């Protein structure tokens, strides 16, 4: 069974929680004791209806304030697919949570209220999905019951959104009309939407083709750990453990090791108790080479004709998470694949307004939840690809060396100015 990870963004008002509740209920992932607890709390709080948002708002503070403040992960499965939902809050002050949820998502689900159409928040969600290179986007036009299931309303919303989306880097966009409250077109077709000829939301999620989303071209293997058993049975064993970050590796392949620049040939690929004939993303394996060369954690195994860029200069789009603003010339710890280095912010080119796409070039800093383009210099070479080409070798995080907090996330655009 295949796994699909998707991120949802929006607020309670959009009916996001109701929609997720509906998906979980209809796929029988909500259990009686959970539903009972939610019904009991709803009664105690004096709601007229069972507030399905209580299922997803897990922290005391969230329930007290009636808002979602953090990413929650939800799980459900149908006979054809298993799903992981990164359920993220939609308000602008939680952009960082949305970015977090989108970073591992195959698909982003953006909800709009049919009565309001495409609003600033929907546009922001689309921009973030595009920046994070979420390949598939679904615009769910919810609350169709409140506009009398009017096809013209749906068409207008789709047209509005398409116009905006054309400015973004989005490869696959689908539009689906639903009423989460009544269950129209969520998991089952509805006579109320008989003019709509497309799939239900669940059908779309189940059948979306994600097989070609992985990069099977550029072979990348960041070494995590050197396996040396030092036992009698495996006396001379030396293997390089890691998770394939792109391409396909096979025994017999000639490989290049960075930063040493030495080449060798793969003698075997091990996976607990045996060998495999190939490994590709996201397999976690151990690679053995024919030659005894010096390789350690942080090194990269790739192909001689297709290597990542070796650089100490990075040009990146950065999302800032910390209350303490990003300043030019500030220094941070940087983690990229399995390599940790230090970085200095040489230049902040602009702050991107994620609502309007306006570039503010006068800014000298990035505040919490801001996004902007920066140039960095790092203390040791990194082996990078453009984020568009490879999410793993194209991403990094910045860490404050004083507080140890994760303060920023970067998507590599290129190398240097």
């Amino acid at each position, binding site marked *: 069974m295949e796994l699909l990870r998707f991120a949802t963004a929006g607020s309670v008002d959009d009916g996001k929680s109701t929609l997720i509740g509906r998906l979980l209920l209809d796929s029988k992932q909500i259990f009686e004791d959970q539903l009972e607890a939610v019904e009991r709390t709803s009664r105690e709080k004096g709601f007229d209806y069972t507030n399905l948002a209580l299922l997803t708002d897990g922290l005391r503070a969230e329930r007290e304030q009636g808002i979602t403040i953090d990413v929650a992960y939800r799980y459900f499965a149908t006979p054809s697919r298993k799903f992981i939902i990164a359920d993220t809050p939609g308000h602008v002050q939680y952009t960082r949570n949305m970015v977090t949820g989108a970073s591992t998502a195959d698909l982003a689900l953006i909800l709009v209220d049919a009565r309001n159409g495409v609003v600033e928040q929907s546009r922001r969600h689309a921009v973030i999905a595009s920046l994070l290179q979420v390949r598939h986007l679904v615009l769910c036009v919810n609350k169709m019951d409140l506009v009398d299931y009017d096809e013209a309303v749906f068409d207008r919303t789709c047209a509005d959104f398409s116009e905006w989306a054309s400015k973004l880097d989005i490869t696959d966009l689908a539009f689906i009309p639903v009423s989460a409250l009544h269950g129209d077109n969520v998991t089952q077709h509805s006579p109320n939407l008989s003019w709509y000829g497309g799939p239900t939301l669940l059908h779309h999620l189940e059948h979306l083709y994600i097989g070609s989303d992985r990069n099977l071209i550029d072979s990348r293997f960041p070494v995590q750990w050197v396996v040396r058993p030092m036992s009698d049975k495996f006396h001379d064993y030396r293997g390089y*453990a890691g998770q394939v970050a792109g391409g396909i590796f096979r025994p017999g392949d000639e490989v290049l090791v960075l930063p040493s620049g030495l080449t060798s040939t793969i003698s075997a690929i091990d996976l607990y108790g045996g060998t495999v004939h190939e490994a590709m993303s996201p397999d976690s394996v151990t690679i053995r080479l024919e030659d005894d060369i010096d390789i350690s954690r942080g090194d990269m195994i790739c192909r001689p004709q297709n290597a990542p860029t070796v650089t100490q200069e990075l040009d990146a789009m950065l999302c800032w998470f910390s209350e303490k603003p990003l300043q030019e010339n500030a220094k941070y710890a940087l983690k990229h694949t*399995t390599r940790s280095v230090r970085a200095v912010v040489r230049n902040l080119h602009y702050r991107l307004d994620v609502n309007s796409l306006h570039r503010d070039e006068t800014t000298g800093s990035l505040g919490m939840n801001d996004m902007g383009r920066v140039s960095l210099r790092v203390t040791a070479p990194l082996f990078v690809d453009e984020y568009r080409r490879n999410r793993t070798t194209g991403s990094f995080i910045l860490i404050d060396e004083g507080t140890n907090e994760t303060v920023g996330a970067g998507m590599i655009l290129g190398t240097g100015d």
Partner: protein
Amino acid sequence: MTDVAVSHLDELEAESIHIMREVAAEFERPVLLFSGGKDSAVMLKVAEKAFWPARIPFPLMHVDTGHNFEEVLDFRDRRVAELGLEIVVASVQESIDAGRVTEDKGPKAIRNRLQSVTLLDAIESNGFDAVFGGGRRDEDKARAKERVYSFRDEFGQWDPKNQRPELWNLYNGRHKKGEHIRVFPISNWTEMDVWQYIAREAIELPSIYYAHRREVFLRDGMLLALTPYVTVLENEEVIEMTVRFRTVGDATCTGAVESPATNPEDVIIEVAASRITERGATRADDKFADAAMEDRKKEGYF
């Protein structure tokens, strides 16, 4: 022909292996919490795979409430011996005897909450800086919001409102002396995934996970096992039934379910049909309040 479809179990396993190798590489002294329960058995199997053919490069730890099912202790000791690993047993009884914690009084008193103190003391005295736990996000609402790398301050506390953002597969394990990171490598697995993996990998579990005859009694809607650690009240009736356990914890607060399932395949069918979560059905410790898990986690619980 290259088969590019990835099974969800392979993908989850690969993610968990990646996490364990990151921890082994970046921390001074990791430890893996091993209770003998199914989640820790799965975690241990993943650890075996992550470092094979080398031995797992960290010790195990069991927080022992003293209220154990014998079958679980036997299983624990057998697995530890098979893998040739060191195990630290942190004893709640010793914490009580040393006056570090005070046990609740009365026939319904349980030791679950006391474990946090024993656990934190053991982490500190052994100098562990990363602690692998078998927690899963599908278990509880508070867990659903917890990071894979969950930072704990010098008091072992979790601050749910101040968690580090966690993106891609880049984990930030940096911490100061005295602080530590709880690591949940099987965060993204569900109860169903765990059972499917147990079936696929033929992972051995303590026998109490499968149907057996046992003397039980009904308390607060749960079937509790008759053990030397519980006092049966006057209005409670002990009966013999065919039961199994969905989770395994302290024997005084872990409930059994009536079940004929004798192997993982039977259990999978049962889990698929179940309408009650595993914790709701069988854990008295989670029934106290809506935020029971969140409150315990803030204090340093698993």
